[in-house]
């Protein structure tokens, strides 16, 4: 996938499709902008007029509540008008149908699409076909990427642990195989020069060549989270499970579920993250999810500021994309 399309020739965001293709400076700029936007909630009018008069469409081909609502709130806090369109179809949406949908929406003078799709590359496909003044934000495509989730995770880590990722050991635990979140997180953590990135998963849920992404792979939870400063849990994607990748959820919990006891292997001030929604009693105990190390709800709050940053940075006057 051509990721250079998301950056214009001045190095500014044109679309936001994946963490790959960003440089460290641009990633840090987005996090800084998100920091600025987080102050907006302190105003009695929780809005800034930056995107007043712009029209944004949440184009969701796949169900999602949290991501859609945080994009919607982010757009509203920027004073944009936002339209939610849910196109859930069981079969793959064919290219032509998708293009027809796009052309129709463009005819309504839309300025930005926020796209969630079950197929990898869907956001790139749309970015390749939209009118020159329209921006595309990837809100999750297949198993490929979920870049705004990765950004809000980096924002959360930076808030809790400070800006020096070099001294951090970060463990990503769970279903790496089906996780677009994990892929985006690994790219973002690498860009920020994270000290050590670990991936902890059952063998059946670890894609081949995972190590080539610059991570250490573990198949045993206690070893994988040993000395970890940050543990990022992934959701066990029940709806994506095909074939016998797991014996049972119960056995997964026994081996990979994070409990208070197992957490003792990590650093005493370990931070626990999860993109939500949590399968309580599968990925982790409620004790952990609601415990003092958990920043899971802060992640949701940060998601709004991060999405405000991405949307406003992609919405400046358009320049032709670099090819």
């Amino acid at each position: 996938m051509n990721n250079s399309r998301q950056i214009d020739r001045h190095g500014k965001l044109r679309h936001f499709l994946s963490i790959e293709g960003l440089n460290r400076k641009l990633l840090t700029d987005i996090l800084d902008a998100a920091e600025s936007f987080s102050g907006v909630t302190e105003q009695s009018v929780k809005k800034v007029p930056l995107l007043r008069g712009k029209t944004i469409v949440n184009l969701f081909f796949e169900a999602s509540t949290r991501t859609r609502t945080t994009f919607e709130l982010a757009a509203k806090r920027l004073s944009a008008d936002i339209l939610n369109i849910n196109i859930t179809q069981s079969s793959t949406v064919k290219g032509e149908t998708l293009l027809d949908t796009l052309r129709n929406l463009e005819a309504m003078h839309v300025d930005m699409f926020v796209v969630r799709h079950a197929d990898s590359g869907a956001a790139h496909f749309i970015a390749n076909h939209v009118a020159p003044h329209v921006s595309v934000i990837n809100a999750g495509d297949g198993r490929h990427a979920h870049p705004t989730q990765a950004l809000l995770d980096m924002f959360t880590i930076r808030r809790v642990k400070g800006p020096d990722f070099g001294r951090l050991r970060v463990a990503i635990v769970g279903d790496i195989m089906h996780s677009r979140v994990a892929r985006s997180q690994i790219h973002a953590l690498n860009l920020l020069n994270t000290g050590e990135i670990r991936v902890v998963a059952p063998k059946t849920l670890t894609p081949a060549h995972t190590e080539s992404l610059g991570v250490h792979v573990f198949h045993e939870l206690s070893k994988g989270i040993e000395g970890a400063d940050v543990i990022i849990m992934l959701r066990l994607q029940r709806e994506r499970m095909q074939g016998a990748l797991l014996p049972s959820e119960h056995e997964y919990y026994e081996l990979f579920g994070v409990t208070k006891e197992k957490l003792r292997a990590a650093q005493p001030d370990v931070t626990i993250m999860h993109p939500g929604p949590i399968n309580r009693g599968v990925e982790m105990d409620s004790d952990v999810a609601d415990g003092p190390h958990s920043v899971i709800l802060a992640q949701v709050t940060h998601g709004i500021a991060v999405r405000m940053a991405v949307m406003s940075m992609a919405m400046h006057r358009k320049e032709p994309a670099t090819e």
Partner: protein
Amino acid sequence: MSDIDNIPAILERMAREIVSQIELTGRSNPAMIGIHSGGVWVAARLHELLDISSPAGSLDISFYRDDFTRIGMNPVVRPSQLPFNIDDRHIILVDDVLHTGRTIRAAMNELFDYGRPASILLATLVERDGRELPIQANVVGSHVRLSPRQHIKLLGPDTLKLEIKQIP
């Protein structure tokens, strides 16, 4: 005609003028807000010279600029800090240079998203020609006559200095 090299003297004059305007209008217990970045430096000094109970606030108007879609966003926007409730408060709004008036418009729009002040008094270190909006300062430190090809900028924050440059 300008005395822009003697900034401490300008600030003292401004402070006296602000006091007399407050007394004249009977607007007691005002709060001071500087516009980022030069206005914050000027506000800090005026705040020292005046007897104001609340700490000075700061306003970064980047999200309220009217040229955002043309120039894009500066990612490093310092969050505005208003350490007091501005509802029904008399506000002294401070900036370094009053030029087109667009910054002041943006600042007032932002202020009203924090609440409804009782009044706003505008104090600027320098006033120059080139207004594009019907905005005037109540207290002006120094009037400077400049051509449209000249640019005046306040340098700081440790030592405040006004610098005039020719735009090429």
